[in-house]
């Protein structure tokens, strides 16, 4: 009796899994035989669940349609799952793609697999945070350092170049984390002697964690005039903290990336503005560079996919609307 119900559950799960599997197989089908003429590009990103990556994916799909190539797009569930990403890269290699698009969670860990790819003459296009290696023929990414530097300049402008500032950063290890921190910090330190950075805290991009730590920063430094949040979760945390403490308008907040809550905060005036990358551009440029490389064309060493400053004044611009997502 008990055994039967267990078996029933197991078979149900298996059937579900098989159905789910079917759909992905259909996607992958074309590269395995019938449509030999269409090149196949495997794209391994750093994630898939976040809207940012979905925007990257939609850019990549746009390019795929335009240049008549097949793509697959996948990434691990969280940005700490280096091993999972390696498995995905391994599997992608086994499928013998014509080119690979890759955003490394850990460049070193990926090196052996990338070498294997280059031995098989599969061109690698790095994107987003890139790959710390000379194997990729190009990197399509946001210049995070320059973007953070722009954030610092905007902060200085809004604060009349004086006062105390703090940072809520999403990560102290990854390249994006450090560049978005250093670009901001170094610009302030070099160009604005009357501004002081009083605290840098890391919230892992977790909304709740970032809220709690931004509150602590505001408690520790009641006279703080500006806070910069280095990604969506961090920026939302800062907004929540300021709102919960009733300090709207007293603190200049600059964010990064987009998302509904950040956009709303800008509309409401709680947040002064934010930097957005161009995620669709990243996806698009990655596929485009792969196609060009397969066609034997020269590809530049790095492709800046661009970034934008947006605030209440330009929120509705076409260019911005294409780059931000809710």
């Amino acid at each position, binding site marked *: 009796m008990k055994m039967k119900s267990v078996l029933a559950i197991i078979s149900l799960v298996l059937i579900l899994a098989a159905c789910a599997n079917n759909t992905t197989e259909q996607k992958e089908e074309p590269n395995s035989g019938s449509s030999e003429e269409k090149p196949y590009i495997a794209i391994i990103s750093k994630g898939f*669940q976040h809207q940012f990556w979905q925007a990257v994916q939609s850019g990549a799909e746009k390019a795929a349609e335009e240049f008549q190539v097949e793509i697959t797009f996948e990434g691990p569930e969280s940005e700490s799952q280096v091993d999972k990403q390696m498995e995905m890269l391994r599997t992608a290699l086994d499928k013998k793609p014509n080119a690979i698009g890759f955003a490394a969670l850990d460049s070193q860990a990926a090196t052996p697999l990338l070498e294997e790819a280059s031995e098989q003459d599969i061109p690698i296009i790095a994107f987003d945070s890139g790959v710390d290696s000379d194997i990729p023929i190009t990197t399509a990414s946001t210049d995070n350092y320059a973007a953070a530097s722009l954030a610092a300049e905007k902060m200085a402008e809004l604060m009349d170049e004086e006062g105390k500032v703090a940072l809520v950063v999403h990560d102290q290890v990854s390249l994006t984390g450090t560049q978005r921190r250093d670009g901001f910090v170094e610009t302030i330190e070099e160009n604005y002697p009357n501004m002081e950075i009083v605290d840098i805290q890391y919230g892992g991009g977790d909304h709740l964690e970032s809220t*709690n*730590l931004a*509150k*602590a920063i505001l*408690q520790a430094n009641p006279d703080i005039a500006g806070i910069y949040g280095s990604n969506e979760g961090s920026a939302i945390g800062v907004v929540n903290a300021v709102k919960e403490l009733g300090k709207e308008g007293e603190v200049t907040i600059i964010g990064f990336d987009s998302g*509904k809550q950040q956009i709303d905060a800008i509309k409401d005036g709680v947040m002064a503005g934010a930097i957005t990358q161009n995620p669709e551009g990243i996806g698009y440029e990655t596929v485009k560079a792969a196609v060009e490389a397969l066609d034997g064309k020269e590809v530049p060493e790095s492709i800046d996919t661009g970034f934008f400053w947006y605030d209440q004044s330009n929120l509705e611009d076409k260019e911005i609307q294409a780059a931000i997502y809710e």
Partner: protein
Amino acid sequence: MSTAVIKQKMRGSAALQQILAFASLVLLIIFFSLASDNFMQWSNIEGILLSTTVIGILALGTTFVIITGGIDLSIGTGMTLTSVMTGVFIVYLGLPILIGILGGIVMGALIGLISGFSVSILKIPPFIATLAMMMIAEGLSLIISGASPIYFSDIEGFHQIALGSIIPGVNLPNAILIFFLMVLIGWILLSKTIVGRYTFSIGSNEEATRLSGINVTKWKIIIYTIAGCFTGVAGVIMASRLDSAQPALGMGYELEAIAAVVIGGTSLSGGKGSLVGTMIGALIMSVLTNGLRIMSIPQEWQTVVIGFVILLAVYIDMLRKKNV
């Protein structure tokens, strides 16, 4: 005569345990107040209490499970799933807020029910059963939400559930009141009702409990379901405070909650524990994190300090038990 003396000592020690935990909390507060002027301010105290609520409520629920000698790893992502379901009910289906909240809590209860079913009927060890549930809940949150956050910003009043103040004139966020209310409800359940009696009984000696004619299978399912309800409440508060259901959060919260339970003096081998202890444990965790932040201690060191506090708390607790 000698047994009477021993008995008195034991009674004293049960009280002593809570006094000790409470004393260390007070000590921490005094220390941080001296270290930074910005610590002992109402807005900061409120901030500490507010940051205790989510982990604290998770910890309260899981205290029940831990007293039975089990463990529940699914509470972190389970909480995420309940917040996503609350979002689905309120935002996508347009149901009234109250129904949405109840739906979220029922979702939490359902997660607990499934864990309890796996543990007591399928006889899967709690660690494995709830580990599986943790992963199932994580995946379902992403699937149901389409891997993007659900925003409540257009829902009038939802944000107020956690951050509004039900007491007129007093600026005390509801989340804090709800937390203390949950402490009270949990305390009554654990020490005044039959559920609590069997929770301790199962944790103390499951086989003897079964031989006493107690339907251990049924009660374990009930206990896991109660823990699931706490998870649901935590999920609703989380969603309300962030004004959104974030499908990618939650992983790792279960370990913080278990740490709070352990600091509060509940034994992982079952049979012993208290909800007041867990409340104090959760407060110690958040006072510590907040205080270290206020002192601008680098983040890397904050976690190191908390790790040592857990070791110390458990060690002191063991010493105390040995000496009795």
